[in-house]
Each structure stands twice: as C-alpha cells, then as structure tokens.
C-alpha cells in the first residue's frame, strides 16, 4: 500500500529520518515502535503527506504522494492522533461528518455511515450531539476513529491513539480496535512506544532508533534473533517483559 524509497527528513540540523526504505503491505497491521525521537511519528506523517521528504519518494497505492495529489490521496487514508484531534467547536456528529459534508454527500448516506460506524466503535448514539469537552477521553478516540473511517479509506494511520488514556479505558479500546481492524481488513499503520501494545496489534513490528530502522519482523523474530544489541535492550526495558505467545492482555 505504501512504498518509501530513500526517504530522508531533517528538522533544521537534526536528522529525524536517515535515508529509509519501507514497504507497507496491503491488509496488514504494521506497528512502528521505538523510543521518543526515533522518527516513528515522522515516518507516519511522511506517509500521510503532512511532512514532505527532503529526499526520496513516498508512494501510496502506486502513486507518488506529491503536494498536488496529497489532498485527493488523503481522502483514502484515515488518520488518528493521540488525544483525538477533534475540532472543539463542532459536536461529535459534525466532527465525524465534516469531510462527507464538504464532499456534499446526501444526508441519508451520511446518517447510514455514521450509524454503521457508531455500532462498529460501540459509541452510544447520544454522544453524537455532544461537544468534545463533554465526552470522555475514550469516547473522543472513538469519535476520532469514526471521523477517520467516514470515507471508508484504504488505510488507517494511528499515532499513539491510546497514549493519553487511563489503563482501564485503554484496555477496553485496545480490544475494540483489534476487533475493528480484523473486521474491516484494512491496512493499518500504528505508532506506539509500548511493546505490549505493539505485540497485541502487529502482524509485523518495525523498530526504529535515532531515525533508522533497526529491525523489522514479528515480536518473536525480534526476540529470537535481534539485529542489534539495542533490540534486546529495548525489549528488556519494557517491564514486565511480555511472555511470548500470550502477548494479549
């Protein structure tokens, strides 16, 4: 679905991403993981075109992602950030429907889509009339997810979607997300710094450090044959270490 070739990104003097190649296969869930500042969020923003690569190219579904094409291509991607990034002046329904309304969908079509997504994400229907400050953190993430899925995109890009939630809500939403990913069969790229979460969602994990991909593989591969001592260090730093094979909480 995504193909990155020789993609580099600098912020001033700092190298955020060294020349990187990455292919994201269709219909699978890829998790980008690594310590703060490793370049995982930068990589995700390059995919959705919020950042322009300094060098190299990003291709989405075979098309190069250029600033001119970005708008059209983004409508085939859903993007969810930590905290939800909801528009505070719009209620949940308006947040979810903003893009469909901009594209002048029929009201009945919008309503059907929202009904379907509300069921999928288990968001109580009375929440739709409320403003972001009037609903809980978990509900905000569900609204954000509905908004991202509104146009039925090919991929879902999530930047630490559960990072700001309390453990109980997080636990609940993790299971719901996993079910949703499985049900929708979409390509998912998820950024997290939590290895447990990565293992829970991932078909494959990409571990980054200081702007470079250190290793790509399943959690088992990362444990069994680390490409670098850092891989083991990173895994050991996550306490308690997840036990192989039963990573699900």
């Amino acid at each position, binding site marked *: 679905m995504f193909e990155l070739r020789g993609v580099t990104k600098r912020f001033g003097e700092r190298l955020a991403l060294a020349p990187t190649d990455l292919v994201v296969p269709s219909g699978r869930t890829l998790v980008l993981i690594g310590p703060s500042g490793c370049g995982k969020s930068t990589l995700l923003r390059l995919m959705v075109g919020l950042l322009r690569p300094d060098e190299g190219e990003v291709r989405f579904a075979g098309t190069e992602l250029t600033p001119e094409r970005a*708008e*059209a291509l983004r409508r085939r991607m859903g*993007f969810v950030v930590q*905290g939800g*990034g909801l*528009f505070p002046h719009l209620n949940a329904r308006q947040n979810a429907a903003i893009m469909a309304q*901009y594209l002048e969908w029929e009201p009945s079509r919008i309503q059907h889509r929202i009904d379907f997504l509300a069921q999928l994400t288990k968001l109580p229907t009375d929440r739709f009339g409320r403003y972001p400050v009037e609903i809980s953190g978990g509900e905000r993430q569900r609204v954000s997810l509905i908004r991202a899925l509104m146009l039925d995109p090919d991929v879902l890009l999530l930047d630490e979607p559960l990072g700001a939630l309390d453990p109980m809500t997080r636990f609940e939403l993790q299971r719901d997300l996993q079910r949703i990913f499985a049900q929708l069969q979409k390509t998912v790229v998820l950024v997290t710094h939590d290895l447990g979460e990565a293992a829970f969602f991932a078909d494959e994990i990409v571990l980054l450090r200081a702007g470079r991909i250190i290793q790509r593989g399943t959690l088992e591969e990362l444990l069994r044959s680390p490409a670098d001592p850092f891989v083991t260090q990173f895994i050991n730093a996550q306490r308690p270490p997840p036990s192989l094979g039963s990573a699900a909480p």
Partner: protein
Amino acid sequence: MSHGAPRHVLLYGLVALTASTACRPTRKSIAVGSKVFTESVLLAEITTQLLQGSGVPATHRQQLGGTRILWEALLRGEIDIYPEYTGTLAQELLGAPQGLDLGDLERELLQRGIRLGPSLGFDDSYAIGVRRDLAARLKLRNLSDLANHPELKLGFSHEFMDRADGWPALRDRYRLPQRDVRGLDHEVAYRALASNSIQATDLYSTDPEILHQDLVLLEDDLRHFPRYDAVLLYRAELEQRMPQVPLVLNRLAGRISQSEMIQMNARALRDRIPESEVAADFLRRTLNLDTATRRVGLSARLRQNTEEHLSLVLVSLASAVVISIPLGILAAKRRRLGQIILAVTGTIQTIPSLALLVFMIPVLGIGPRPAIAALFLYSLLPIVRNTYAGLTGIAADVLESAEALGLPSIARLRLIELPLASPTILAGIKTSAVINVGTATLGALIGAGGYGQPILTGIRLANVGLILEGAVPAALMALGAQAAFELLEPALVPRGLRLK
C-alpha cells in the same frame, strides 16, 4: 484644489479609497474657521453672524485646532475665512522671524491665493501688566519706567522665560535691573500679583484678567514685541465667487478695540456666556445688526454629538475589521510577511493620535474624513494581532487532523481555523472599539465633531460641565460597545468553545 497641498495618496495606500472622495464639494455656504481659543472663536462667531445677517449663508467651523490646521484648511479651501494675527502670519506661516510690513505681508499672502482682510482694530501681543494702584504710585507708564525700580519682583510664565522674544530679550532691550525674577504658572502669577508677592507679569494684551484684576499694561515704548494685529484672512477667489463677502467683512474694520476685546473675552470666559450671544451683543451695539442666535439645548447637542461620534466610530471600525482580519490571516499564514504586517501596524500605534490626525490633513483635509482614516489606522493593530494570535494558537493536533482529512486550505480556514480563532478575534475587535470610541474625541480638533466638541470647549473655557457633556457619553458609549460585543458573542462564537 489649491497648490501646496501634497496629494500623497499612494503614501497612504490604505486610505486611498476614502481619499478618492476627498475632493471638496462646491459649497454654497461660506465656512468661517476658528482656533481652539476663546478670542478666535468669538471673532469667527462675529464674522459668521455678520455674514448671515447680511444675507450670506455662512457656517462657523468651531475650534478646528491650531494655527497650522486653520492655515492649511484655508489654503485648501475647506474654510474660506478665519481670524489671524499679523505677527503669527509673518513668523509662523511665512517664515519671516523679523516680521513683515503690511505691504509685504499682503503680497506674500496673495501669492498663495489669500487676501489680507480688514484689520479689526486691536493688537493681541505679549504685554507686561502691573496693578493699577502700583502703577499710579510709582508712575509707571512705559516699560522703560521699570528700569528705575530695581526692587520690583517679577514673575513670568515659563513660556515667556524661554521664548526668544521673552524675558532675556526684554531685559536686554530695556536694560532692566530686576534680580528677583521667577518662572510661574499663569494662574499662580495672577494670584501672586493680587497678593503683591510679585509686582509685574507677562500676559496677552486682551486677557480678561486685565479687567478682573484691574491691571495696567505698560507701553512697549521701544517696540520690543512684534505686533499681533487681529485681521481676517479670506480666500482671494471669494472676490469673484461671492463679491459681496469682502464688502461685508470690511464693516468690521477697526471696530473691535482692545478694551472691547477684553470685555468680550471676559464675558465668555468668566461669565460663561455662550460666544454666539457675546457676538450677537457686539453686532447689535456696534453695527446695529440684529442676528438671531438660537441656543441649542442640551438634548439636541447630545443627539448631534452622538450621531457624529457614532458615525466616526462605526465607519472606521467596520473598515478596520474588513481589512484587519484578512491581514491577520495573511500574517499567520506567511510568517515573514506577517512580521512586516505586525511591525507596520504596531508602528502606526506608536504615532501619537494628535500627530496622526494632523498627518491626515494634507491628504484628506479637515472634518470627519481624516478622523475616520486615523481611527481606522488605530483600530488595525488589536484586530490584526488577535487574528494572528488566534490562528497561530490553535493546537497542532487539531490542525494536523484537519489537514490529514484532505480538506483544502481554504476550507480548513473557513470551517476550522476561523471558528476556533473567533473568540480571540472578537476580543481584538472589542479592544479596538473601546480605544476607537476614546480616541474619536480627538477628532473634534480637526473639525470632525463628536463628543470631543464639548470637551474641547470645556477645556478652553475651564467649564467642567461642558467637559463632562462630552466625557460622560463617550465613556458610556465605550461601555455600550463592550456590552454590545458581549451580547454578540453567542452569535459569533461557536457553542463548543463557550463550554467549560
């Protein structure tokens, strides 16, 4: 349009729109101007009523400001006539510090299209006054006589102590021996004179205090002070346009004596009789002319001032809103251009309001137009800055989400960014409105009317009632503007942003 009025329309690009309508309409009525002091207002009022009484439609544009403003307005034809003093003409306006004789003065003026009208009959220059009893006892008649009394204590206004033709020059000219000479406030000097703690002070030769304190002016026998003969100036083209006007004006030639002027100043300043009545009395007594003066009641004055003030504020504020919000958006979107926009609007704010008003005169003349342009410029910064701050202060995750949805930038601005910035923008407009209402009172200085009119008159006449007649409604209007925006807020700020 007269020569010498630079049309730097491009220089004031932002006001170019209003400037295009600045060409003077051909007035049917003669406009008489006056400066912001009582004697000038009285003389202009006499002139206006005389013209009206002679069948010439005339209006009095009261207390337009200082010498420069009146002079420019006369050159540009925004007023046709105003009272001036020969000394001021020569020194301040024609740049001849030594003074000019009447022939030279007439020639210089005519080159600028201005006619030196009739001399009114009195001279308003600096003079030195002493109490009548003291003058009698010491036989003081001339300034030269002061030289025989080194023991006298002198107190002069600070301005007189500093002026080139003030105390130092006077002392040298008359070889005055007094050692006890101090700078005093004018009011204090009169009291000191009354209590005999000083024996002589400087004053204007038509100052009503001369009458009130029973003072004697010492004759300037060595002709130290330049002459400040009161004259009427008018536009030479009037001789063709309305040939009867110069004839009417000539009826005032030599009619106002020094003591008459002192009397009239005293009645206006001390007895608080409206200038229009003092002027009407004078015309009745000396020219046997009955002019109907109507007293305008408080409520009618208030209504007129309110209308004028409101239109200054509304027009300038509305145009500022229309221009500032796009400027603020531009500043937020193009950071480098934004720094320039913020710097320029910030710089405008540092120009003293009076100076800004005066800068506008060469482009827009006198009256409401330059005042509106100046108020417009003053209203820019708070709105531009708040628009900028409102837009740049939006949380990054919200902006990213909007962009990642695939909304084009115009749609993001309209649907997301402006609504989110709306409380801040509204606060900026509120600030501008309150500042605008206050600053608009200065518009009266350049003939824009409004609440500044009674304030100016009140300051001139030391009449607190009149000052309050302008200041209280201005304060109420500022509060009203504030309240109006509070009421508008629910309609302009999305509900989601008002929840806490």
